[in-house]
C-alpha cells in the first residue's frame, strides 16, 4: 500500500504577462494578456512507506508545485492525490498532524519572535506530549548546534541558522511524511553534511517517507536511491539513481597523466578531448570503445597514470535537462 499516490496530476496557473517598462504597464492596464502556465502537467507516481525519494529538475520544473499539491496547499487542476489515505486538499487535522513541509526559501517561523516561541506554539497546535517535546527538541537542538540562537528574534538569524530552526519546527511532531524543499539551501558544507546525515537517520529510525528536492546533487546522491526527474511539468525519469548512469551515460571518462609532453592533436584520434593541460588530459570515449582506447593510449603515449571513470551524475543530469531526449 503506497503512502503517496499521484495519478495524472495537473496544476495550471493563469498568469498575466507584462512587457517591460512603463508602456508595457499601461498596455497591461487596458488589455491584459493571460496565459496558462502548466506548472505540473499530468504526472503520476507512487511512493511506498519509508522511501526517501529525490525530486530533481531545473528551476521552474514543477517540483515545489508538486510538493504543495501533496501537502494540501494547492488545489489540483486535475488528477488524484492521496497521501496517507487522505486527500491533502481536505486539510483534515489528522492529516496535517502527520506531515510537514519545509521550504528552504520560505519562512514558517514567527518572524518577529525568537524561534523558541514557534516551537512552543507548534507543540500546542500539534498536541505533542510534554516529554516527547522536550526529548525531540533537546536532540535536534544539540545535533544542529542551535543552543545559542533559540532566544534570538528569527529575523535576525542568518539563513543557515534560520533553516536549522525551520527543520526543528517541522520535526517536533515527528511527521510520518516529510516534504523537504531544498532543505540545505544556504548552508555551509559542514552543515549540509550534518543535515544530510540527520535526514538519513530520521528516515531510517522513524520509517518516515521523505521527498526531497535539491539543487545540490550531493544531497540526492548521498540520500536517495530513487529519483524522480521532472522537467517542464513532466516526469522524464523515475527509477534508481544508478540506472540513470547505466541508461543514459553512453560515454565513460578516461583521465590520463602523461610522463612527457605529447601532441594534443594525436590525442583526439582516441576520443573527444574534454580537457588538456600538460600533464593531465580528460578524454570522453564511447562505452563500448573504452578498452580499445585505453590500449591505444598505453601503446602510443608516454602514460604515467590512467583512470577509467563514470561520467559524474551532475553532468548526465545537465545533459538530460539541456534537451537530450530521455523518453
Amino acid at each position, binding site marked *: 500500500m503506497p503512502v503517496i499516490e499521484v495519478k495524472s496530476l495537473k496544476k495550471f*496557473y493563469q498568469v498575466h504577462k507584462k512587457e517591460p517598462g512603463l508602456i508595457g504597464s499601461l498596455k497591461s492596464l487596458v488589455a491584459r494578456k493571460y496565459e496558462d502556465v502548466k506548472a505540473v502537467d499530468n504526472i503520476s507516481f507512487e511512493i511506498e512507506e519509508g522511501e526517501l525519494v529525490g525530486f530533481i529538475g531545473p528551476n521552474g520544473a514543477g517540483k*515545489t508545485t508538486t510538493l*504543495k499539491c501533496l*501537502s*494540501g*496547499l*494547492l*488545489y489540483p487542476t486535475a488528477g488524484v492525490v492521496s497521501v496517507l489515505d487522505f486527500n491533502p486538499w481536505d*486539510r483534515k*487535522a*489528522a492529516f*496535517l*498532524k502527520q506531515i*510537514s*513541509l519545509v*521550504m*528552504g*526559501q*520560505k*519562512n*514558517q517561523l*514567527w518572524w*518577529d*519572535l525568537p524561534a523558541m*516561541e514557534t516551537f*512552543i*506554539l*507548534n*507543540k*500546542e*497546535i*500539534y*498536541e505533542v506530549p510534554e516529554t516527547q517535546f522536550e526529548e525531540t527538541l533537546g536532540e535536534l537542538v544539540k545535533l544542529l548546534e542551535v543552543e545559542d540562537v533559540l532566544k534570538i*528574534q528569527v529575523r535576525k538569524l542568518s539563513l543557515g541558522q534560520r533553516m536549522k530552526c525551520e527543520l526543528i519546527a517541522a520535526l517536533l511532531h515527528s511527521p510520518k511524511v516529510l516534504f523537504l*524543499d531544498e532543505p540545505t539551501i544556504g548552508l555551509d558544507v559542514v552543515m549540509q553534511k550534518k543535515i544530510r546525515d540527520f535526514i538519513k537517520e530520521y528516515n531510517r529510525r522513524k520509517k518516515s517517507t521523505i521527498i526531497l528536492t535539491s539543487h545540490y546533487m550531493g544531497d540526492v546522491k548521498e540520500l536517495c536511491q530513487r529519483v524522480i526527474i521532472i522537467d517542464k511539468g513532466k516526469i522524464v525519469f523515475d527509477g534508481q539513481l544508478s540506472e540513470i548512469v547505466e541508461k543514459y551515460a553512453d560515454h565513460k571518462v578516461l583521465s590520463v597523466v602523461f610522463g612527457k609532453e605529447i601532441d594534443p592533436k594525436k590525442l583526439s584520434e582516441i576520443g573527444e578531448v574534454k580537457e588538456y593541460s600538460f600533464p593531465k588530459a580528460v578524454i570522453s570515449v564511447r562505452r563500448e570503445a573504452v578498452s580499445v582506447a585505453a590500449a591505444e593510449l598505453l601503446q602510443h603515449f608516454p602514460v604515467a597514470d590512467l583512470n577509467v571513470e563514470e561520467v559524474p551524475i551532475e553532468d548526465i543530469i545537465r545533459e538530460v535537462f539541456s534537451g537530450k531526449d530521455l523518453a
Partner: protein
Amino acid sequence: MNLWVFASMKKYFQLSKLTLQEYFVYRLNFVLWRFRSFVFFLTLLFFWLAIYGDRTALLGYERAKMLAYVVGVAFLRSFVLGSRSADLAGQIRSGELTKILLCPIGMFSFWLTRDVVDKLLNLFFTFLEIGIAVYFLRIPFYFPQRTETYLFFALLLVLALFLYFFVSFFLSAFAFWTEEIWATRWLFGIIFLEFFAGAYFPIDVLPGWLQGMINLTPFPYLVFFPLKIWLEQLSAATAIKGILICGLWLIIFYRLANLLWQKGAKNYGAFGG
C-alpha cells in the same frame, strides 16, 4: 472530552501569548499606534465641542449625550473595529498564509483568536487613555439606568464583534482573486464601514430616508446601534429588532465568508518559494 477541550484551549492560549508578544517587539510602533487612536479621539471630541459651542442641544442630541457618544465611539472602535484579520489579505498575496494552512488549526479560529487579543489589548489602553481624558476634560460619562440595557448592549456587542470579523474575513478573501485588495479594503473598510457604522457621528443626524437605507446595511449595528442602546435612546422593541437584524447579517456574512474562502482557497498560489 474535557481533556480534548483543555488541549485545544492551550493552543489558543499560546497563540494569544504570541500575538501579544508581537505587539511589544516594536516599542515605537506600539506607542504610535496608541498615539494615533488617542489623536483620533481628541479630534472627534474637539470637532463636536466646536460645533456645539455654547449650545446645549443640536440635531436632537444634548451636548452631554453627544460627548458620551464620542467617548463611546472610542471604546467601540477598539472593541469592535480593532482587528488583526485585516492582515489576512496581505498574507494571501504574499504567500505567508502557507504557514497557517500547513498547521492543524482552523482558519477562522486562528484569526479570531488574534482579533480578540487585539481587541482586549486595545480596550485596555483605551480605558487608560480615555479615562485620563475624561477626568481632565471633565467630560460627563453616561451610565445606563435600566438593567436590561446592559444585557442588550452586551448581546449586540458580541454579535457586532463576530459580524465585523466575518465582514473583514469576507473582504480579505478577495485577495485570492485580485492583487489590488487595498483599494476595496480602503473603500469598504474605511469609507463605507466607518462612515455608515457611525464611527464619526451618530447616524440619526442624517435625513430620515438616508438613515432608513443605512439601517438596511450591516454597518450601523457595529457602532451606532450599540451606542444608542447604551445611551438608552431606543425602546426595548427597537433594540431587540436591531439585535435580530444584526444576527441576520451575521449569519449572511458567516456564510459568505465561508463560501468565498472555500472558492478562493482553490485559487491560492502559495507563492514565494
